[in-house]
């Protein structure tokens, strides 16, 4: 009969053997008085270690030691807190100026927009709303105007001339093509072109006003 090793018995005593090995060694121990005795002795020695571990060292005044350790722990914690607060970088104040400036700017913009809207004449305001709607729908630069009726007046200005269209008829004021031409359009119903003659240097300004009758 092969006995399990003492190491196997020592591990079995503390429940540290793997499942299969445990079953095998237990089966042997159940039929072997010698191994059973060794196992029992190992278990007893483990219990004695536990018993010993719960005992304080001899001649030790535990109450005094406990008081001293508790006091030292508190001092250590307090010192740790003091060091932590000393090392902690001062709280950085967030720059509130940026927020304040932003708020003031937003309020000023709203005030300006309101004053502008209140001061422009009503037809122009409506025209502006229409223009903004058209910009929102078609974007800037697209000249498609699907909503135009036959009787609507269109005042157009480009670097080649100024044109007024009404009732299917058009009046054009042409000028020589110039790279330096400046086109201006006024919301009150006027369009102008300012250009410089390349040969003579003469400055010409054409301005067409449309007045509703």
């Amino acid at each position: 009969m092969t006995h399990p090793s003492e190491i196997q018995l020592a591990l079995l005593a503390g429940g540290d053997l793997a499942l299969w090995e445990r079953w095998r060694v237990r089966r042997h121990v159940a039929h072997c008085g010698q191994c059973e005795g060794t196992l029992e002795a190992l278990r007893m020695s483990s219990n004695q270690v536990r018993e010993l571990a719960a005992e304080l060292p001899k001649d030790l005044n535990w109450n005094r030691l406990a008081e001293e350790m508790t006091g030292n722990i508190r001092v250590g914690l307090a010192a740790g807190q003091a060091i932590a607060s000393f090392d902690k970088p001062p709280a950085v104040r967030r720059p509130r100026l940026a927020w304040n400036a932003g708020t003031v700017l937003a309020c000023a913009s709203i005030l300006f927009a309101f004053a502008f809207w209140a001061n422009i004449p009503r037809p122009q305001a409506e025209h502006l709303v229409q223009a903004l709607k058209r910009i929102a729908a078609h974007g800037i630069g697209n000249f498609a105007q699907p909503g135009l009726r036959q009787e609507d007046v269109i005042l157009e200005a480009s670097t080649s001339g100024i044109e007024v269209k009404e009732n299917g008829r058009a009046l054009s004021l042409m000028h020589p093509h110039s790279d330096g031409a400046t086109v201006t359009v006024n919301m009150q119903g006027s369009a102008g072109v300012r250009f410089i003659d390349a040969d003579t240097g003469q400055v010409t300004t054409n301005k067409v006003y449309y007045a509703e009758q």
Partner: protein
Amino acid sequence: MSDRGVPSQLDPSLLAAQEIQNRFISENLRRIFLLIYRIVRNVDDAQDLTQEAFIKALQRQDQLKDLDKATHWLSRIASNTAIDFLRRNGKVNFCEIDALIEPLTEPTDSPEQAVLRREHRTHLEGGLEVLTDRERTALLLRDVEGLPAELVAEQMNCSKATVRSHIANARIKFRRYLERSRRTSGRKRA
């Protein structure tokens, strides 16, 4: 910190935290001291390391919310602190502490019982002396603290097989020591 000039001592949340801290210390101090003492085998060092372990644990207040987990966590810190100490020092210094020693008086024991008890303890302590530092640490963590071999291996920074070997060797050595001393004392009586 306190709000609006209320002294910090009167802050209810701080008082509650302090109360938890005090309870945590008083409930675990003896157990942790003994665990460390059995590993380093010196009262002075065990005292320093116990304090260090508690300070480390209590500096993380958030860990104290679940006291049951905190207890395991503290054991882990304590054994790690003791193991680190052994690693740093190689061998433990065995100088005795004088200031704290007082004659042991146990009113429940008769003088004879006290002597027998002391002899028995000295005898058992001799059993732990025959173990190496690693064997003793593994045995204490496994048999006294009840940690599974995997956790003991993790704490001792070695493989599970090595830890099992340390534990088995420690149990065998301790058992042989007890048998030897029993035989010796039997011979003396005869």
